């Protein structure tokens, strides 16, 4: 009895082994990895890091950044962009909290092979990461930070002062985007009674403040200044509060997870007025979550269709089959990574990598860089901010963000 069962078990086991024995994912040229056999990678491996939220509420944005940067690194390896070296991409999760971001940055900074870091997403995490990377002269290029003080110090308009030589960003600051939105909403759209709502986060508050300042300068009336929580779901009390004040538009400083439902609940309470926001709401999810026809948003750079490089990024991203969409900051993360790769190439010209000398050279090369990215032309001013002050106003039309007008903010 027992014996028979044992024999049966052994037979089944043997059969299973035999069936699966040949299954492997062996590739033709093992060992060379993603670099392909054609590139010379004899000098070793260099690392491009990332610090972004890969888990938690903002992970949709963070994962898009990760995939886009990964795409840039892969493409660089395929095209042998940095002769002699293989590039490796290392994404660290900051869980959108400064403390974890600091730990992630330290992890990257203590690796001598790290040549640059893309990130962070949040301005609050950037504040922690900046000094750690700067201490090792590692260049940091952020695709998403908008807090003006990150580059210009405590008094960004009165007495701007560069904070870290090694910090750059390809996104514009709240100083540009907020007023640009105000110009459109007040002057072009003719809205005079505007309710301003923010989510209490660095990005949202900064944007809303700059918007309100400029709107008041242009003669508009800010009828309400309200705050909602980034994790709130029920905005009816806030809407009830602003409803009797008869606003003809709502400006929201924050990201799409709140903006979409907020827009919908506005309509639900009978307030059929447009909601306007910044680059944080320009995502297909905004409409899915309740964004309405006629809602407005500003985004950095020219519309995707008008830039061939952006169209190429979108096509390549699609071809690479990443599970997550590239989201709001994907194109900029891609550009940030390419900035680092390009600068690395310049800094290495002819020589070998040496953390002591190459890293400062990379920082210098980034400062002088000129590049046509997916989000527009890239170069940096004396504070490390992008010189690309081109912005576009979008509106939701037929369920999609459609560009209305592109321009620059002239103060």
């Amino acid at each position, binding site marked *: 009895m*027992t014996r028979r069962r044992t024999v049966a078990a052994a037979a089944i086991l*043997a059969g299973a082994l035999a069936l699966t024995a040949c299954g*492997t994912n062996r590739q033709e040229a093992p*060992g060379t990895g993603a670099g392909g056999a054609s590139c010379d990678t004899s000098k070793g491996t260099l690392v491009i890091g990332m610090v972004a939220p890969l888990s938690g509420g903002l992970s949709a944005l963070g994962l898009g950044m990760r995939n886009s940067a990964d795409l840039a690194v892969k493409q660089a390896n395929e095209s042998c962009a940095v002769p002699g070296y293989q590039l490796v991409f290392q994404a660290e999760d900051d869980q959108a909290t400064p*403390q974890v971001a600091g730990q992630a940055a330290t992890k990257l900074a203590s*690796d001598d092979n790290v040549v640059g870091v893309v990130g962070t997403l949040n301005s609050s995490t950037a504040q922690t990461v900046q000094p750690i990377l700067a201490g090792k002269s590692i260049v940091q290029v952020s695709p998403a930070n908008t807090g003006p003080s990150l580059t210009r110090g405590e008094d960004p308009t009165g007495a701007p002062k560069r904070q870290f030589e090694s910090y750059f960003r390809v996104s514009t600051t709240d100083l540009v985007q907020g007023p640009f939105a105000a110009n459109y909403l007040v002057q072009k759209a003719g809205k005079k009674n505007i309710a301003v709502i923010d989510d209490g986060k*660095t990005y949202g508050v900064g944007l809303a403040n700059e918007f309100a300042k400029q709107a008041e300068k242009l003669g508009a009336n800010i009828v309400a200044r309200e705050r909602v929580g980034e994790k709130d779901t029920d905005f009816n009390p806030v809407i009830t509060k602003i409803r009797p004040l008869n606003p003809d538009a709502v400006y929201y400083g924050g990201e799409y997870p709140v903006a979409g439902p907020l827009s919908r609940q506005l309509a639900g309470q009978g307030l059929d007025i447009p909601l306007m926001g910044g680059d944080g709401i320009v995502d297909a999810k905004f409409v899915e979550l309740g964004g309405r026809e006629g809602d407005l948003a500003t985004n950095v750079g020219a519309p995707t269709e008008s830039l061939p490089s952006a169209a190429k990024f979108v096509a390549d991203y699609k071809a690479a089959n990443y599970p997550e969409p590239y989201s709001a900051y994907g194109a900029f993360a891609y550009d940030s990574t390419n900035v680092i790769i390009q600068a690395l190439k310049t800094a290495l010209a002819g020589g070998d990598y040496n953390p002591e000398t190459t890293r400062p050279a990379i920082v210098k090369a980034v400062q002088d860089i000129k590049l046509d990215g997916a989000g527009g032309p890239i170069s940096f001013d004396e504070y490390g901010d992008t010189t690309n002050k081109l912005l576009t106003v979008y509106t939701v039309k037929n369920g999609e963000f459609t560009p209305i007008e592109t321009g620059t903010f002239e103060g």
Partner: protein
Amino acid sequence: MTATTEKKPPAHAAPRPKGIAALKPHTTTLMVVGGVLTLLGSFLPWATFVLNKGPYPAQATLQNFTAPLASSGFRLHLVLFGIAAIVVALVKRIPARHRIARALGYGTIAVSVINGLWITVEGGGLGAITASEGSVAFGAIVALIGGIVLALASRVGDLEPVPEIGWKFNRWVEWLILLVVIVLLLLLVAAVLTSGGFGATATYAGAVFLSFLAALGGFLGALHAAGLLGWVNALFDRHRGYAVILLLVAALCLPLTSAGTEYWMTVATNIGVYAATAIGLNIVVGLAGLLDLGYVAFLGIGAFVAANLSGAAASAVGIHLPFPLVMVIAAVIAGIFGAIVGSPTLRVRGDYLAIVTLAFGEIFVRSAQNNIGGLTGGSNAIPGIPPVEAFGIGFDQALRIGPVSLPRGVLYYFLIVLLVAFVMAVFANLKYSRLGRAWIAIREDEDAARAMGIRTGPVKILAFLIGAMLAGLAGAIFAHKTATVSYESFRFLESVTLLAAVVLGGMGTIPGAVLGASILFILPEKLREFADYRLLLFGIALVLIMRYRPQGLVPDAHRRAELVEEPEPIDTGGDKPTTREAVAP
């Protein structure tokens, strides 16, 4: 195919259900067979081809018969296990042979399963560890069978009780032995931390780390089975003061080992911050039995106090006080809040108290998020907190003493080690004090404690107050070390993590909280492959611990922990009398 040749060994496992007793005379043979198979497995190739992500570590694609001494990594561990098994099998004088064989067998099984599975998954199928395109690699399977045979042999044979070794030496010899043990421990900790390398270039760090842990587990299990661990434990108890000082020195020496990099110093400092906080929580939960679900708020209060008194440009207060003073102020303010949060304990008990503390925690987070009184920076956080300075040295600098150069962050590490040592000392003293006995009495039965004349109200508030002060101290260091303090670091999940650290380590014990905090921080660092599942596994682990080992990894030996059902083991007549007799109803 080739697989059939290897099908024989399971036949040994065949008679397990009924015929297991028939093998009894042959346990020695079985053990030898198991050892030989383990050795054989370690010399065979493990992977049939060089995996796409790069070669698997320990030269897994080669066979080491030609160069037996070239074994490294997990294969070296298996070689050692195999030899040890054979030695144990043949030398009959070794006590508890079967118990040792069992530990070795389990270790072998774990190592071969971890590495075999990893290669299988990375290699896209069982072909990666069996046979594929003309190359064979049965290392994993042979070693696994070896491990199973070893475990089987121990099951067949009688499991002896763990022997008690009564060796006693001259005091100096014993001190020397302790010194050696602690140095080994230090090297072991460093080896665990650095195993598998780190960074994007270390592809298989997770596997190497897990395999190393498994091997270590098997090794320690064997030592325990041989009675050696118990003996070392007894040595510790005999020379407690000396051993504690040695441990402290060893902790301070960690930067001199291979783990002495800036990265590990940062991780270790973070662990220290949470360990110190968890010990504070252990007073409240482990000793006094008052569940606090908002405890991380006290760490936050300490951190925000320190941030505001640090002279950081972004702080509203904007004064700069010397750091020792800041620590005291942070502790006092956190303590005051602790007393406030604890005051409902006068009227609320049990689950309701847990909810009250949770509510306080949420109020703290929400207020900090709204930048209450301009003190917390709200969503902007308080960035740019300057490093602690002493004797003209910024604590964030690297250190060079003569020929020894220490990495950045090492001074914070020293600071936090001293803090943890201090907190442990406070905890140990309290636990065995009159106050500590009162807490435990309240934990066991509050009404009975009151009946015995303990003024439960003030005593419970004291637990909150002292726990909060310790967390406040940790918070002050935390603020300077991370240089940014944001409300996001003090959310509910962090409170749950702290609680998990205490529960995992063992409620009411001194090393428990440190061990728990270390595990909860090191595992995610090492197992980046599972990063997405981190919290899922964390939640499941919490459920499993509560069900299967509620007393934690280091159970409280002298007193019945809050969560254990079985009656307290008879007190071993230790030096400290328990209060339970006094308060038992």
